[in-house]
């Protein structure tokens, strides 16, 4: 009984040993195959690189770059690629991909192009491996087993770095647009103007309200002219947020005059039925400022008309 149990345990441990041995041998094989692969790619660097650049041109990718530029980028991507295959560390490639994205994004290179060229390189290299090992199908299989995961990881890394870089640029631009977008300017004592240019979304509308109310307090404003000549389109949400801004300003003791309602926007407002009855509107910015001056008791006179 006891002997039998021991025997079973022995069997199992022997099995474990065998499978572990297989794992180790696979690892060892990878350890042998990858350097071989890398050596192959190093050796055939020039023709492979050329084949890749040609296939990039043939598939009309990176059309915004000259063929010399494509070739030199291709060279550095190729070298990085081989290096990652050799070392297995994607950090250098990540860094390079970020750098590359920074250079090519302003030139209008699209995500599908970047992903496309990396996949092309994968295919070009895979073809060369086919060519080299086509006599020994078994060896080819094992070489591809070593190559494919590494290649896919590289393609993944480059694509992700590119998209991340792109998103970072978009976020930066959004931030700078937000910073630029809502100046609150004092034109007379107690009179502020707020020229709004560009699309008003809910985030911008909220920021605008906050800046305006802060401006009312710090400039002790009594009248505010909001000019929306530069707003291309309004919808119900934008109109309602304008009404709320006007209400909030009134609570702080400032009157608001809205100017620059184009006929199109005015018609939209009437159609969607936003209640602008409580909002004072004047045709254009000049009219708005004149009305505001009247309310504040200013009178602008041409100096030649002024009595001596």
């Amino acid at each position, binding site marked *: 009984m006891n002997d039998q149990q021991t025997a079973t345990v022995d069997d199992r441990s022997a099995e474990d040993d065998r499978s572990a041995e297989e794992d180790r041998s696979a690892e060892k094989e990878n350890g042998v195959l990858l350097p071989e692969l890398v050596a192959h790619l190093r050796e055939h660097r020039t023709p492979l690189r050329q084949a890749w650049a040609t296939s990039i041109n043939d598939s009309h990718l990176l059309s915004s770059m000259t063929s010399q530029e494509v070739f030199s980028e291709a060279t550095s991507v190729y070298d990085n690629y081989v290096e990652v295959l050799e070392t297995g560390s994607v950090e250098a490639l990540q860094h390079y991909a970020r750098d590359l994205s920074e250079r090519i994004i302003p030139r209008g290179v699209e995500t599908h192009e970047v992903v496309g060229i990396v996949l092309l390189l994968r295919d070009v290299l895979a073809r060369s491996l086919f060519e080299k090992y086509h006599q020994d199908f078994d060896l080819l299989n094992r070489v591809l087993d070593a190559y494919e995961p590494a290649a896919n990881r590289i393609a993944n890394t480059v694509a992700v770095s590119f998209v991340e870089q792109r998103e970072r640029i978009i976020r930066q631009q959004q931030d700078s647009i937000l910073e630029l977008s809502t100046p609150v300017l004092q034109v007379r004592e107690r009179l502020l103007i707020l020229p709004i240019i560009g699309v008003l979304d809910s985030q911008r509308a909220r920021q605008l309200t906050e800046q305006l109310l802060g401006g*009312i*307090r710090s400039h*002790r404003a009594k009248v505010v002219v909001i000019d929306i000549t530069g707003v291309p389109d309004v919808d119900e949400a934008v109109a309602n947020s304008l009404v709320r801004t006007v209400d*909030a300003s009134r*609570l*702080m*003791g400032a009157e608001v005059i809205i100017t620059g309602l184009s006929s199109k926007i005015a018609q939209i407002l009437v159609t969607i039925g936003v209640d602008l009855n409580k909002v004072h509107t004047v045709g254009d910015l000049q009219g708005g400022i004149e009305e505001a001056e009247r309310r504040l*008791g200013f009178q602008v006179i041409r100096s030649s008309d002024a009595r001596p």
Partner: protein
Amino acid sequence: MLGRDLPGTAEPLRFSILSQGENLIVSIHTALDDTQMTRLKADLIETVGRRRARGIIIDVASLDVLDSFATRTLTRLAHVARLRGAETVVVGIGPEVAIAMVQLSLQLDFVHTALDLEEGLQRLAELTGTIAGHAFTPARHG
């Protein structure tokens, strides 16, 4: 003396009603609960009649929030005061309070608003046609 028969008399007053010429100035010290708010309304309406006030200024700068109850109380107060011949100006609503109020769709009907006490006095002067403090003559009159 004020608000003798109202609840909350034991508590110290959290507001004071000052008289300046024809105007009453209400200064709120700290946040008011609903009881104190009701008491403010009652005291103020009583004082308007007694002092024959033409204008009321309520300074809410020390309040972090004007909720629906406070808004409704102020609106009623202003309506009643108008019926008794006084205009009400609420001053000192800060940006955050104003944004919160419009988001909650709270309206201050019958109530005028101004930035601070000084502006409020000027506003009352315009409304009641008297010159308080320094002269304010809009161009359309001159």
